[in-house]
């Protein structure tokens, strides 16, 4: 399965984004309209209280050539959560879809911890204006840590297949200090849950649906699923859990798995390749893939170096 690089299509450093965000356009995810494609992403504000980041949702509307920028969000798409809530310090990523005539989205909310940096959980938000803004359907998450998924539930990607909601998401298996000097690092794996209403979910509690390639310390993130011919294909990114920011060859790459039944997945990263010379923006890292169809084209949005600090690009299935 060969995908062709089409290059970077959005650079956030060239625009003024809401909430004083000026870098990062992470985890691009598409919602296709008649005349354009809205790409949601998460961008970052510097928290003046402590210099840490806050992740905000924004979007860019592109013509279906996926080149021409028509509009950029000019106000808050989804406010951050209230004091003490699971999504108080950021929403990243956001997964939009249409359901019963409305636009809904699954969010990954971030809240900061003391002994480790963060905890996450998955929320549900609803739009009443066709995706310009979203409101929470509750202050808390629809899916959070549980007995055998002890932390860091996030990155939900939802599709309805034969009337059943399927969610692929990630759950943390634990935190670890890899060296005495290093801050705690997390490891997470891809899981699966189903639902009849999109609100109440049944997890396959603790089942890692994608085999490890780098061993137990592999972290897998941002699953995205698409049907191609008769099979389902999942794309995700994976990395080492330690020294993944600067360590050569330890950062995010894109992985792939195939399934006939949405339950059993055969991992085959080598079946997937992106052809074409990497750009300056995606030479060291490819992460946060999102696949979608637009006018018969099968497209993949993804981030490059530094987890999307410099925007996102596009690839197309040949």
């Amino acid at each position: 399965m060969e995908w062709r690089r089409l290059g970077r299509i959005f650079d956030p450093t060239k625009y003024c984004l809401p909430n004083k965000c000026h870098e990062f356009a992470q985890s691009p995810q598409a919602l296709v309209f008649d005349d354009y494609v809205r790409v949601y992403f998460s961008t970052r504000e510097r928290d003046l209280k402590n210099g840490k980041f806050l992740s905000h949702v924004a979007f860019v509307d592109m013509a279906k050539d996926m080149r021409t920028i028509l509009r950029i969000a000019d106000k808050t798409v989804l406010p951050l959560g209230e004091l003490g809530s699971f999504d108080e310090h950021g929403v990243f990523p956001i997964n939009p879809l249409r359901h019963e005539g409305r636009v809904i989205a699954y969010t990954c909310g971030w809240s900061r911890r003391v002994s480790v940096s963060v905890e996450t959980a998955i929320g549900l938000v609803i739009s009443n204006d066709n995706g310009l803004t979203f409101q929470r359907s509750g202050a808390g998450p629809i899916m959070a840590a549980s007995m055998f998924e002890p932390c860091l539930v996030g990155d939900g990607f939802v599709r309805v297949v034969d009337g059943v909601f399927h969610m692929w998401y990630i759950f943390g298996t634990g935190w670890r200090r890899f060296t005495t000097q290093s801050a705690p690092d997390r490891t997470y794996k891809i899981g699966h849950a189903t639902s009849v209403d999109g609100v109440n979910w049944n997890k396959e509690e603790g089942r890692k649906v994608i085999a490890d390639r780098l061993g137990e310390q592999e972290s897998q993130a941002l699953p995205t699923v698409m049907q191609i011919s008769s099979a389902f294909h999942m794309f995700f990114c994976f990395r080492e859990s330690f020294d993944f920011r600067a360590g050569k060859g330890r950062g995010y790459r894109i992985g792939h798995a195939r399934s006939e039944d949405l339950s059993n997945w055969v991992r085959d990263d080598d079946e997937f390749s992106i052809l074409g010379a990497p750009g300056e923006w995606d030479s060291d890292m490819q992460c946060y893939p999102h696949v979608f169809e637009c006018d018969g084209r099968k497209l993949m949005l993804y981030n490059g170096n530094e987890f999307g600090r410099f925007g996102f690009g596009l690839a197309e299935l040949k």
Partner: protein
Amino acid sequence: MYKWEKLGKVFDPKSVSGRPWLQEFAQAPASLLFDDFIRIYFSCRPAADENGQYVSYSAFVDLDRSDPLKVMRVSDEPILKLGALGEFDEFGTYPVSVIRHDNGVRAYYAGWTRCESVPFNVAIGVADSNDGGASFVKIGTGPVLSYSQDEPFVLSGPKIRRFNDIWCLFYIAGRKWKLVNGRPEPVYKIRMATSTDGLAWTKLNRDLVSSRLEEDEAQASPDVFYSNGSYHMFFCYRYSSNFRGKEFGYRIGYATSTNLFDWHRDDSKAGIDVSGSGWDEEMISYPHVFDVDGVTYLAYLGNQVGRHGFGLAKLLGNLG
């Protein structure tokens, strides 16, 4: 109104030595009856760390069944380990509630983690004992009951019961973090969930008990007891601000129900209040009602929410 005869303080954490993890507090008493003794689980703390912060453990004290004011033994170790780095119960296992199950003992407990914008968050864990309730091993490393749309944070104070083969978990869920003089203080309400196996829970998703003091009244320790054809709940409640003293601190309330889901609150029936002087003169909280050999007891906390231990009261007459 019920009539309770106060028997005094039964257990003072200061009376114990050689246990650095048990320096202060004996909070949230919960009973388990044995042939010769009444085991009362409680939660306690070692001395605070250099930043003044506490972790909490749970332990037990065995009281003589024929004379519950007599302490027979105190557990040598905490009954539960704290969670590992980043786990939901890394900084505390408090409170705990136990039930006999499958010839063993099962504990539900609240696990504490520390947060940046608010001081903590809490979710409910579950653990089983294979040694008759002396120690417990967590079934999983994550919580059995956690945050959801209508219960966004601070799920704490579990009380496990089984009525008519249905598992009932009474607990509290945070409603909001209220800034009081710049400090976030949690407002929480009494909630419940039911289960057929004690592991997969269905939340009722509504408050069981109306608020009386103010909209932001905090309610805790929903202790449910069946007697004489109806369900009785003793609980405690306080104001949302300045609640660390007598005027706005915890008092014990009461509600009754015929079906476990619809409760009628009538605090005037609780029949127990702060004393004129002594260890429970400022506040009383965390009630737990249990029956031993025909006598109904109420274990509860006094000043500073159990910093100095818990006491017992004896019911004169029956629960109606």
